C-alpha cells in the first residue's frame, strides 16, 4: 500500500511524498517528533498521520503481523532462541551452569577481585569464538577492547595453543583427516583474528563503542566483543557521579544494540570495590547500583578456599548457581604431576609416582634429591593437572588443576620421600 492511497488531506500527502515517504513501511518505524521535524508540521499532526498508518497497515497485513516494525511475538522469539549460539568457556562445569557457554545476543558482565582470572577468561573467549564449525565452534572473530593493558600476546598464544590441542584431542575419535585439520590450525591465525584496541582514556572508550556499529558492519564475522575492563577509566576523573551514570548508561545501551543487531556476545569485565553500608564494609562490583541494571547477565568470580568459583548473580534465563573453574598454564590432556619447589637450582629432577587412585583421592609420592647441602625448611608445591579425564564406563569428562602444598624438613642431603594426598578432586573423576 502506498502513501498516495492513505485517507489524508492533500497537503499532508504532498508533504509526505516530497519528503520521500512513499511507502507505509518507511513510515512505520518513525517517531512523531521525527516526522514532525521532517515535514515541518506540528507534533500532534504527525501523531495523527502515524496512527492512520498503523491502523492501515494492521488492516492490510492481518492481525498476526506486528504493528510496529521490529517487534516480534513471544512465539517467534522462543523459536529464535533455539538457534542462539553460545561460546564455550572451555570449562565444562562453568559451561554447564551457563547452559553451554556465553550466549550471543546478550551482554554479560564478569566481575571479580584482581588476580581471579577475569582477563584470562576474556582471552579464552576471544580464542574460543574462533573454533571452526567442524569442531562445534562459531568460526567467528573477536574484538578485544583493552583499557588496562593486561592483554599480553604471549599469553594469548599459549591459550590458543592449548585450545588447538584440545580440539585435536577431542576430535581424533571421530575424524580421520585430523592431521590435515591440524595443519590449518595455527596459534598465529588465532591471534590475527582478534581485533585489538588499546584504550587510554574514557573519551576514547566512548568513541570506540560508538564506532563499533560501523566497524562490525564492515567485519560481519565478529562474534564477540570483550571490554577489559569497562571500569578502569571511569574510576579516575569523575567527580560528577550523575554524569558518569548517564555516560555509562549510554554505553550499555549501545552495546546491547550491537549485541542484538549483529547477534554477537558482549562480555564486559568489571572490577570489585568495597561498599560502605550501615557502617560495615562489603564487596560489590564497581560502577554502582545503576550499572547493575545495564547488563543482561552478571557473573561473579570468587575464591573459595584454594579454588576459583564462578557464580551467576543475575540472569533472566539461568538459575543462580556456582561452579568451580581453574586457570592453568597450558592445557594438558592427562594427569601430570610436577613438583614446583624452590629454589629449583637446589633440587634434582624428582620422580613422582601415583600410588593409589581412589574414587576421589589420589595418593602421590614424590622423591627428590637435594644437590647443594642443607636447606632447612623446604616448601614444596605439588601441582597436579588433569584434563579430559575419561571414565571407562560413565564417559564423564573432568577438568581442572589443583595444587597441594606441603613442606619437608631435610637436615642433610638425601632423598626425602613425601606422600601427599590430593583431596579436592571433583566428583566426576
Amino acid at each position, binding site marked *: 500500500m502506498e502513501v498516495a492511497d492513505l485517507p489524508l488531506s492533500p497537503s499532508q500527502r504532498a508533504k509526505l511524498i516530497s519528503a520521500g515517504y512513499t511507502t507505509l513501511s518507511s513510515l512505520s518505524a518513525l517517531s512523531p517528533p521525527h516526522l514532525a521535524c521532517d515535514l515541518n508540521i506540528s507534533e500532534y499532526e504527525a501523531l495523527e498521520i502515524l496512527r492512520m498508518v498503523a491502523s492501515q497497515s494492521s488492516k492490510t497485513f492481518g492481525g498476526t503481523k506486528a504493528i510496529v516494525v521490529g517487534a516480534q511475538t513471544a512465539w517467534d522469539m522462543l523459536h529464535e532462541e533455539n538457534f542462539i549460539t553460545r561460546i564455550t568457556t572451555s570449562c565444562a562445569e562453568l559451561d554447564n551452569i551457563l547452559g553451554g557457554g556465553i550466549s550471543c545476543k546478550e551482554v554479560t558482565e564478569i566481575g571479580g577481585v584482581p*588476580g581471579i582470572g577475569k582477563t584470562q577468561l576474556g582471552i579464552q573467549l576471544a580464542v574460543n569464538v574462533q573454533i571452526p564449525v567442524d569442531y562445534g565452534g562459531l568460526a567467528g572473530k573477536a574484538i578485544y577492547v583493552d583499557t588496562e593493558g593486561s592483554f599480553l600476546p*604471549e599469553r594469548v598464544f599459549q591459550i590458543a595453543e592449548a585450545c588447538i590441542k584440545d580440539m585435536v584431542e577431542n576430535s581424533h575419535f571421530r575424524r580421520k583427516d585430523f592431521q590435515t585439520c591440524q595443519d590449518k590450525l595455527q596459534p598465529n591465525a588465532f591471534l590475527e583474528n*582478534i581485533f585489538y584496541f588499546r584504550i587510554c582514556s574514557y573519551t576514547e572508550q566512548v568513541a570506540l563503542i560508538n564506532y563499533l556499529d560501523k566497524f562490525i558492519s564492515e567485519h560481519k564475522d565478529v562474534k564477540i566483543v570483550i571490554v577489559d575492563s569497562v571500569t*578502569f577509566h571511569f574510576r579516575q576523573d569523575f567527580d560528577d557521579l550523575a554524569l558518569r551514570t548517564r555516560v555509562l548508561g549510554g554505553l550499555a545501551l549501545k552495546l546491547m544494540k550491537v549485541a542484538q543487531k549483529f547477534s554477537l556476545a558482549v562480555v564486559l569485565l568489571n572490577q570489585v570495590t568495597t561498599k560502605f553500608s550501615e557502617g560495615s564494609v562489603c564487596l560489590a562490583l564497581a560502577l554502582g547500583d545503576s550499572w547493575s541494571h545495564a547488563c543482561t547477565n552478571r557473573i561473579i568470580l570468587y575464591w573459595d578456599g584454594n579454588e576459583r568459583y564462578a557464580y551467576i548473580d543475575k540472569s533472566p534465563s539461568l538459575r543462580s548457581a556456582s561452579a568451580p573453574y581453574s586457570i592453568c598454564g597450558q592445557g594438558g590432556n592427562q594427569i601430570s604431576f610436577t613438583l614446583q619447589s624452590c629454589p629449583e*637450582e637446589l633440587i634434582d629432577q624428582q620422580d613422582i609416582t601415583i600410588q593409589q587412585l581412589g574414587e576421589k583421592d589420589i595418593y602421590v609420592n614424590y622423591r627428590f634429591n637435594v644437590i647443594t647441602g642443607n636447606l632447612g625448611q623446604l616448601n614444596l608445591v605439588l601441582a597436579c593437572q588433569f584434563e579430559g579425564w575419561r571414565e571407562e564406563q560413565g564417559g564423564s569428562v573432568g577438568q581442572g588443576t589443583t595444587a597441594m602444598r606441603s613442606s619437608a624438613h631435610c637436615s642433610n642431603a638425601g632423598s626425602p620421600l613425601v606422600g601427599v594426598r590430593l583431596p579436592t578432586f571433583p566428583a566426576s573423576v
Partner: protein
Amino acid sequence: MKPENPLHLLSQKCTTGCPIIDRVLSGGIPCNSITELVGESGCGKTQLCLQLLLSAQLPISHGGLRASSLFIHSEFPFPLRRLKQLSLSFCSSHPHLLPSQDPCDFIFVRAVQSAEELLVLFDRIDALLTCPPSKLPVKLIVIDSIAALFRSEFENTPADLKRRSSLFFRISGKLKLQAKRFGLSVVVTNQVVDVMGSDGINGLRVGNLSSLYSSGRRVCPALGLAWANCVNSRLFLSRNDEIVSKDSGLVDGGDGGTDVVRTRKLQVVFAPHLPEAACNLLQILSTAKISRLTVALYSTD
C-alpha cells in the same frame, strides 16, 4: 580508530639481571604494563629496582632494553652509595656491553613528596620521553615507593578514601598511557601492612596466594583493593630469618656459634601472563662475616 593485530604487538621484557627471577617472570619485567613489587622493608625492593635501572641499559640481545631510566623516589634518602657500588660491579661484569660512559649517566632521579606532585610530574614527563637528554631513550620508570605518598596524607574516612582511590586511578591511568605511547616498562614498589585478625577487608584474598607471610607475620599489600585494580602484575617479596647453628654444615668453615639464614622469596601474586610461581633467594648472614652482606643479593653466585 584502527584495531591492532596482536601478532604485531611488541612484548619486550627487561631482564632483572638474575636468571632465577627472570625464569619466574618468563624473561623479566614486561613493557607496556605496570608491575608492582610488594614487600616489607628490608626485603630488597629498592635493591631490585636499582638493579633494574642498570640492566635496562643492556643491549636487547642480552635481555635489556638499551635504554635509560627514570627513578622517582619518595623514600629518602636516595641510595646513591648502593647504586654506585652496584654500577661498579655491573661495569666489571659486563665490560663490553655497556655504553662507554658511566652507567649512572643513564639514570635520571627525581624526588617526589606528594601524590599531587607526582601527577604534575607526569604532565611534564613528555619532554623527557620524547627527547631524552642522554643518547638512550627512556624506557623504564621506577617509582619507589607509591605507598609512602599516600600513607600520611589521608584519613580513614569514606570521603578521604574515595578521594584517595580516585587519585590511584588517575596515577595509574597516566602511567599506562605513557607506557603505551613510549613502550615503557613501569615498576612501582609498595609497602605491606599487618593483617589483624583472620578476616576483614585486609584479609581479603587477592591473587594466587591465600595469604602472604613475611618475617613470620601475616601481611597484605598497602593501599587496599582499589590500588590492586590499578596494577597489571603484582610480585610479592618476603623474607624469613632462621637461626641455624654453624655446625649443621650450612656454612662452610663453620667454627661454632650461630648463623642467620635469611631466605628472601619472590612470589607471583597475580600477573596476566604468568602462572603461580615462586623462587627463593638464599642469603646467609654470618655474624662474623658481615661483609658478605654486600655481595650482590640478586645474583646467581
